[in-house]
C-alpha cells in the first residue's frame, strides 16, 4: 500500500488543485446573482416591522403619531443626500433619519442583516449599507460627513454598523438619528417625519389616527388620508423591481451545479485512469483488488470533498472581503452548508458508481 500511496501522491495533488481552482470560479459565478437578489430584497424579507404608514407627520404631532401606531414602532424622515469620507463621496444616498423610538429595534435596517458593528453606539452614529461602506472605504468607528443642505455645514457622524441591505432604486442607503440631523438644519426649519414603521395591525392604529385632534393636524399638513402598505407587498414590489429575478437565480444556480458536477466527474475520471497502472502492478504482485480500489477512490473522494469545500470557502471569502461584491449577506450563510453537502455528495456518488467497475476491470487484467 505504501507503493500505491507514493504512486498516487502527485495525481492527488493535481486533483486537489484542479478541483479547488475550478470550483472556486464556478461558485463565485454561481453565487453572484443570489447574493445580489438577497441584497435587493433583504430590507423587506427580514423586516422587523409589518406595516409602513406613509403621510406627512409635522414635528408637533410626532409624539402623538408614535403613540398611536403602537409601542413597537419608529418614525422615519427619508432624505436623499450625499455622504463623504475623506475625498470620497457617495450619493445619492437614501438616508433614514429615525426617531428616538428606533431604540426599540424597529427600522428598515433589519438586525439579521448586520455585517459589522453593533446596535449600541454614541449619540452621533450612522449605519451604512454594505454598498455605501464599500464605496466610501469605511467601517465601524470611521467618521462620515452627511450633507444636510446646499450651503450648510455637514453633520459629522461615526459609523456604528454596516448592513447587507439595499434600497429599491438606489444602491446607497444609510440610517442616522433624526435629532442629530435635525439639529444641523437652520433654526426655524420645519423637520418632521414622513413614514411610520410598526408591528401593530392597521385595524388597531388607524382608528386612533382618525380621531381628532390628530386627524385635523394631519389634514392641515396635507398628510391625510394615510397610505398603509404591508411589508409583504413591499417585498413583492422589491422582487419586481430587482433586476435579479428568481428565474435568473435558478438559472445560474443550475449552471453552477452543472459546472461543478462536470468538473468533479472529469477530474475523478482522470485520476482513476492515471492510477490504474499502479493499481494493476500492485494487484499482479498479490494486492487485493477491492482493497486497492477502495483505498484509491477513498483518498480521491476525500481530496475531492476537501477541494470543493475549500473552493466554496474561497468563493465565500471573495464575497465576504468585498472582492466580487460589497458583501456576503449573513442571511444567506445557512445556505452554505447545504451547498457544501451537495457538492460533497458528487464525489461520493462517483466513487460508489465507479468502484465496482474499477474492481471488475482490475480483476479481469
Amino acid at each position, binding site marked *: 500500500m505504501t507503493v500505491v500511496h507514493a504512486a498516487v501522491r502527485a495525481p492527488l495533488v493535481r486533483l486537489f488543485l*484542479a478541483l479547488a*481552482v*475550478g470550483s472556486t*470560479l*464556478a461558485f*463565485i*459565478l*454561481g453565487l*453572484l446573482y443570489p447574493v445580489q437578489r438577497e441584497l435587493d430584497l433583504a430590507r423587506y424579507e427580514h423586516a422587523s416591522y409589518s406595516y409602513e404608514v406613509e403621510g406627512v407627520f409635522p414635528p408637533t404631532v410626532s409624539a402623538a403619531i408614535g403613540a398611536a401606531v403602537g409601542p413597537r414602532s419608529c418614525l422615519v424622515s427619508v432624505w436623499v443626500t450625499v455622504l463623504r469620507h475623506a475625498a470620497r463621496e457617495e450619493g445619492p444616498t437614501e438616508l433614514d433619519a429615525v426617531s428616538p423610538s428606533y431604540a426599540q429595534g424597529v427600522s428598515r435596517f433589519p438586525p439579521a442583516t448586520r455585517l459589522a458593528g453593533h446596535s449600541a453606539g454614541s449619540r452621533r452614529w450612522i449605519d451604512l449599507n454594505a454598498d455605501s461602506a464599500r464605496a466610501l472605504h469605511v467601517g465601524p468607528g470611521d467618521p462620515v460627513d452627511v450633507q444636510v443642505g446646499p450651503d450648510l455645514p455637514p453633520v459629522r457622524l461615526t459609523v456604528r454598523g454596516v448592513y447587507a441591505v439595499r434600497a429599491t432604486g438606489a444602491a446607497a442607503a444609510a440610517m442616522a438619528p433624526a435629532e442629530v440631523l435635525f439639529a444641523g438644519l437652520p433654526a426655524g426649519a420645519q423637520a418632521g417625519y414622513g413614514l411610520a414603521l410598526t408591528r401593530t395591525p392597521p385595524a388597531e392604529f388607524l382608528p386612533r389616527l382618525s380621531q381628532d385632534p390628530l386627524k385635523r393636524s394631519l389634514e392641515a399638513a396635507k398628510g391625510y388620508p394615510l397610505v398603509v402598505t404591508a411589508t409583504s407587498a413591499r417585498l413583492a414590489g422589491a422582487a419586481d423591481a430587482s*433586476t435579479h*429575478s428568481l*428565474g*435568473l437565480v*435558478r*438559472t*445560474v444556480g*443550475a*449552471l*453552477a451545479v*452543472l*459546472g461543478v*458536477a*462536470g*468538473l468533479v*466527474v*472529469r*477530474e475523478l*475520471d*482522470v485520476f482513476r*485512469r*492515471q492510477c490504474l497502472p499502479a493499481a494493476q502492478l500492485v494487484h499482479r504482485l498479490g494486492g487485493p483488488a477491492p482493497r486497492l480500489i477502495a483505498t484509491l477512490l477513498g483518498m480521491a473522494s476525500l481530496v475531492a470533498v476537501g477541494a470543493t469545500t475549500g473552493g466554496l470557502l474561497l468563493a465565500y471569502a471573495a464575497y465576504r472581503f468585498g472582492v*466580487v*461584491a460589497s458583501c456576503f449577506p449573513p442571511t444567506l450563510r445557512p445556505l452554505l452548508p447545504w451547498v457544501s453537502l451537495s457538492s460533497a455528495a458528487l464525489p461520493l456518488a462517483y466513487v460508489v458508481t465507479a468502484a465496482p467497475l474499477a474492481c471488475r476491470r482490475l480483476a479481469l487484467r
Partner: protein
Amino acid sequence: MTHQLRPAWAALARHLSATAALRDLGLLAAMGALASFAILFTTRAAFDDTMHELGLRYEARMLGVPAAAGDLRLDAYDSAVAASAAGAVHGGRTVDLTVLVFDDGAPVSTWLAGAVRGGHICRDGVMVDEATAARFGVRLGDRLTIWWPDLPGSSGAVVRVCAILDVWHPEGALGTRGYLLMARAGLVAAVPAFNGTAPDDTMSYWFRARPPGSESKFAVIAGILADQAGWSTAVLAVVLIGAGLWTFGIVRVWTGLRHGLETPRRVLGHLGAQPPLLAGFVGTVTVGLAAVGSAASAALARTTIMGWTDLYITSRQIVVVVVGLFVLSMAVVLTVSRGGSRWRRRQQALPAATGGRR
C-alpha cells in the same frame, strides 16, 4: 515535415480515447455554459443597444425639441403595454414598451437602414423589436394588443406587425423594456384617446449634417458603452471570471490530452517525429473540442436564460460570445504549448549545461 505529419497524427489519433474526449467535451460545455451565461447576461443590454445604434443610419442626433427641424423627428411615448392579440394565445404575458411615433412622409426607411430584421416598413401597422416579438411568439402579419394604462379612456388596440427590428432597450441597463415604431396616423386611428397627448421624449436625427448641440453617432455609441448600458467594474469582473473559468477548462483538457498521449508521443519522438508535430496534434484536438464546446455551451446558456427568465438573447450575441470563447481557446492553447516546449527544451539542455548532473 509534411510527409511526417499524416502518419504521426494518425498514430496519435489511434491512441485517443473517445470516452475521454466526450468527457472533456462535457467539461467544456458545463464550464462554458456558466461562463457564457455570465458574459451573455451582463453584457446583454450594452450589446443590444450598441448593435441597434450601429444598424441605424444618421449623422447626428439630438434629444428634446431642437431649434431647427432635423431630417427625422420621433416622439417617444412611455407607459405603453403590449400583450398578445385577442384570443390570448400566449397567455397573460405583457411587455412594457416605448412607442416611437413618426409623421407621415418621414424618411424612416433611411433611418432604419440596417436595423430591420425582417418584413417591410409600413404606415398602417407596427414595427416591433425582435425581443418583444419573441416574447409573444408573434411573426410578420400577426397581431398585437397595445394599450396605455395611464391614459384615461384608452382601450386596447389591435395592431398588425409588419416588420421586426433590432433589439433595443430604451431604459438602458435593466434591458427589460421593448419598443414599437408606428406612424402617427396609425396610432391615432388605433387609440383615439391618444390624440393631442404630449410625448415623454423627442428625438431628432440628421442624415447629412451635425448641427450645434447634437451628438454624433460615434458619441451616442461611446455613451452607451461608457455608462448608459451599465458597464462597470462589476461587469468587467464577471466577464473576467467567466473568461478565467473557460481558460481553466481549456488548460485542463489540454493537460489531460497531453498526459494521455505521453507514451505514444515518446515512442514517435524516438522514431524521429518532430516534437512540434506532436504538440500540434494536442493543440488541434483541444481547439476542435473548444470549438464544439463553446458553441454547445453558448447555446445551452441561451436556452436556459430564455427558458427560465423573461430575458431575450439575440443570435448575434451568441455568435460573438462563441467566437470570443474560441479565440480565447486558441490563445490559451498557443500559450500553454509554447510554455510546454520551452520547459522541455530547458530539461533537454540541463544535462549538457551541468555536465550530466541534475
